[in-house]
């Protein structure tokens, strides 16, 4: 019986690339489904009845579902090129692919990194308000946050936050820091076009932490108190791989600024990246059958 590790994402994603290369160097069978190049070509058949079984094949590789021992799931749900995605058919194909892969991952008994709950399907990047709604028992502290269509309310919030705050769009991952009264005035014209999503700036040491399985990898040293908070939060969201952006204050309070359920390794330092990849490989192999 063959055994495969399935990687679903994009071939040019460093995480997919590095994990595939490491697994292959260890003699593992890797099947990489590069989601924007699957149709036509993917051979997929899944029967759902009282039992669920099926096969999956691409080019020369073919696997029964029970031969898949682990999955690294890093797909976006877009199964076509950006140009095709602008068309009705491209969007339809992507909806169908997304629907298929969510159900497929749910049926597999092997480790899946990550098998996202439906609440996270369209929200892989969580800001404090998301975290507070999804993790009611959240032990991290979070910066005060306001969403408003009123510039006057934004000004009052600026004062409440001690004259500094951060503006972030609700649907993009960018941040704009505001430290002066002149700068905050720029929110006035913006408020005519967009809701203002503002958060207080917390002073302290910024840290990046990656949870991989039961390990926490910080970009800078080890931090026992922060580690347990990361593990608890990841566990409550059933995540075995995620990235936290944190602030540790001088009083040793831990603030969580964001949580990414599909961490990118683009901006990682090489040492952190290598540790993350090694842990991912270890996590994926932990579910492997002993060869018989």
């Amino acid at each position: 019986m063959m055994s495969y590790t399935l990687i679903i994402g994009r071939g040019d994603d460093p995480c997919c690339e590095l994990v595939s290369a490491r697994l292959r160097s260890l003699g593992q069978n890797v099947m990489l489904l590069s989601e924007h190049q699957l149709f036509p070509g993917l051979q997929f058949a899944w029967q759902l009845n009282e039992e669920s079984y099926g096969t999956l094949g691409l080019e020369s590789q073919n696997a029964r579902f029970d031969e898949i021992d682990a999955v690294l799931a890093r797909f976006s749900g877009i199964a076509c090129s950006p140009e095709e995605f602008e068309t009705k058919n491209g969007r339809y194909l992507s909806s169908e692919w997304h629907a298929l892969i969510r159900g497929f991952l749910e049926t597999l008994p092997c480790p899946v990194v990550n098998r996202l709950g439906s609440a996270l399907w369209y929200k892989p990047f969580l800001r404090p308000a998301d975290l507070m709604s999804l993790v009611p028992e959240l032990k991290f502290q979070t910066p005060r946050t306001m969403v408003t269509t009123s510039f006057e309310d934004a000004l009052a919030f600026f004062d409440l936050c001690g004259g500094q705050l951060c503006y972030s769009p609700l649907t993009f991952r960018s941040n704009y820091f505001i430290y002066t009264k002149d700068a905050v005035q720029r929110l006035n014209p913006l408020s005519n076009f967009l809701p203002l999503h503002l958060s207080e700036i917390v002073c302290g040491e910024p840290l990046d932490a990656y949870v991989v399985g039961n390990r926490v990898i910080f970009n800078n040293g080890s931090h026992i108190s922060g580690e347990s908070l990361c593990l608890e939060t990841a566990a409550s969201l059933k995540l075995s791989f995620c990235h936290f952006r944190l602030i540790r204050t001088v009083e040793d309070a831990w603030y969580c600024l964001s949580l990414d359920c599909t961490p990118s390794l683009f901006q990682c330092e090489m040492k952190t990246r290598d540790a993350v990849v090694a842990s991912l490989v270890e996590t994926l192999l932990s579910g492997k059958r002993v060869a018989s």
Partner: protein
Amino acid sequence: MILVCGVLADGMIELMCARLNHMGYPYLFLDELRFPGEFNLTWSISAKGVDGYISAPSGRFNLADITGVYARYVQYRGGTKREGISDREDELVKSEYQASLMQLLDILPCVVVNRVRASVSNDSKPYQQLMVSTFGFHTPRTLITTMPEEARAFYEDCGKKIIYKSLSGVRSIVRRFEDIDLSRLERVRNCPTQFQEVVEGVDIRVHTVGDEVIATELTSDASDYRYAGSTGHALKARAIELPEEVASACTRLANSAGLTVSGIDLRRTIDDRYFCFEINPSPGFLFFERASGQPISEAVARLLRGDR
């Protein structure tokens, strides 16, 4: 105070506003076509919880006074595009405003019909099929494939009685597969397709409203009862009581999905087995209320006021 969010052109919003008026329950209708503008919003969240207000032409309403929210997540329709921005920018602006509202509804502590985060499982029918089967419902024999030969074999195995439909909520129309369709099967290579064995029986729509279960039996000679009127077929709808274990499975399923109100599609076979096809997070109960006279919107209104 009850908050209703949506657009008045949506029949469900119109029904709920009319029902709340009729029952004398105070409510605020946040017209998404006039947000921002005539309606504005400020909310903040801290360790103490959510705080804020909605300003409307009729006044300013504290979020703390809201006992329940009825929301329909519709695309903005008919809104005017701002000058000087591209179509893509316009789409992004609208997404930002919609997100400002949806995120609020996700964190409000009151009853919300329904929170966005509870509504997405319906976007994957196979995911839902796996979910409903854990509550003891039967589910139809199903094949999802990109391989024409597998689809052909399934068609034969099922005695040529199968349907096909989308896997997601997009273009979700059920169609019977016939011999004439065999020549088109090659197309499944381009897009995964779902085939299901036909299950003969009586259609039942169950609405769960909190812990309340309202079941409607539907009989029609149309292939899909939802289109009976428009295709000139008769439709009979009547209130029924479900066996206790089936009713309980419905509420457990809805609770597990985080849906305070749901529409569950069942079919009862001649040997009294209950098949479940779907759990709808934004059910259009107007159709069923009209057809059967069951007071579904009243039950929803009571839930929103916090009566139960």
